[in-house]
């Protein structure tokens, strides 16, 4: 049984808040390295993906909704570890969760995990844009 979005979000936040800036960056790097690869059914379909324009590095995302569960898929280059890290966090918190829970994730989540100081306010806003786009795609798909 997976935890809920709010439980997962709290877990992520407490992990980040506990560490020094250096530890926060190490943790973000782990999320970057653990960002799931695209499943085969999507890896050949770049057309389905939406670019997150607000991010400094090219990152694309795609959302599917099946039986009320949300699937979130990202693709970002290896040379963009910070952006990949943001994607990894959101994948961990949102992937496989019910629609209503995904939509309930706070837009301020990126500011609540205590990463801003370690990565700079300018960089963190890319994650806000990802959340915005994920929620919008979810709403479009359940409409």
């Amino acid at each position: 049984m997976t935890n809920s979005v709010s439980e997962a979000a709290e877990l992520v936040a407490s992990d980040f808040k506990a560490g020094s800036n250096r530890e926060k960056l190490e943790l973000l790097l782990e999320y970057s390295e653990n960002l799931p690869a695209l499943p085969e059914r999507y890896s050949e379909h770049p057309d389905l993906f939406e670019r997150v324009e607000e991010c400094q590095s090219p990152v694309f995302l795609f959302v599917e909704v099946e039986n009320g569960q949300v699937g979130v898929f990202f693709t970002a280059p290896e040379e963009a570890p910070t952006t990949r890290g943001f994607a990894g966090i959101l994948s961990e918190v949102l992937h496989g969760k019910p629609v209503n829970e995904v939509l309930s994730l706070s837009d301020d989540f990126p500011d609540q995990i205590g990463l801003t100081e370690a990565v700079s306010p300018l960089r963190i806003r890319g994650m806000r844009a990802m959340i915005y786009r994920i929620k919008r795609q979810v709403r479009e798909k359940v409409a």
Partner: protein
Amino acid sequence: MPAPADATSKFLEYAHPEVLVTADWVAQNLDNPDVVVVESDEDVLLYEIGHIPGAVKIDWHTDLNDTVTRDYVDGAGFKALMERSGISRDTTVVLYGDKSNWWAAYALWVFKLFGHADVRLLDGAREAWAASGRALTKEPTLKVPSSYPLVERDDKTLRAFRDDVLAHFGNPLLDIRSPQEYSGERTHMPDYPQEGALRAGHIPSAVSVPWGRAVNEDQTFKSRAELEAIYQGEKGLNPNDEVIAYCRIGERSSHSWFVLKFLLGFDNVRNYDGSWTEWGSLVGVPIVRGEEPGNAPAPRR
């Protein structure tokens, strides 16, 4: 003791050939105790996934900026940063990074605010290392802490504040942002909406030379003749001019500042790091929209 200059023939054309090195030079000097190689990137984690062996990381946000005031670290902060990076006052510092050395050039400019004598850029940026067939490493770099003097930051010689810009009207201003930012079509460059301002356009009389015109496709700097054709020929700047360069937050303009100062030998060029994020939100300062530079207002002193 400063390390020897890189005698690559392209560099000899520049006004200050010693400020650039090649990947080959870096490779030959990896064990030189007088040299410290520093990576400075836009992506705060890029160093962690691979850097030049022995390189240390200096991040513009976490290391060079003050955490509270919108300003750079002070003398004590810079001293501490240098000491933990193993850099002494006479160390030859070689900077490199992502995005054609934007952030490396920005870091170089900050080093110069503190008067560090010997700071160089790896021509071709971070890509040049891989392009030379060499591998990056994830191996952490452990530096023996150095001793660095307490030096007060010089905010006059190479740095311009908004009041300096107001007093500068009548002298050349260089806007190095994208054409859309310059004309006022957008307040930020494509893909960077978070660094916006309340008004769009450019500082009156500023000429537009997007920073990227100074580099080749492989991120190396263009030849001196090509650079002269752009800044001196096309834009009519003169090496004796007093020039102020700006962008959004001062990092891309550090890159153009480097070109004017060291490659073309402009003696008096300053970087306005407040740049458009400040000017475009300031109450009561003049702004021009559109593709023309517009006339310089009377200087305010």
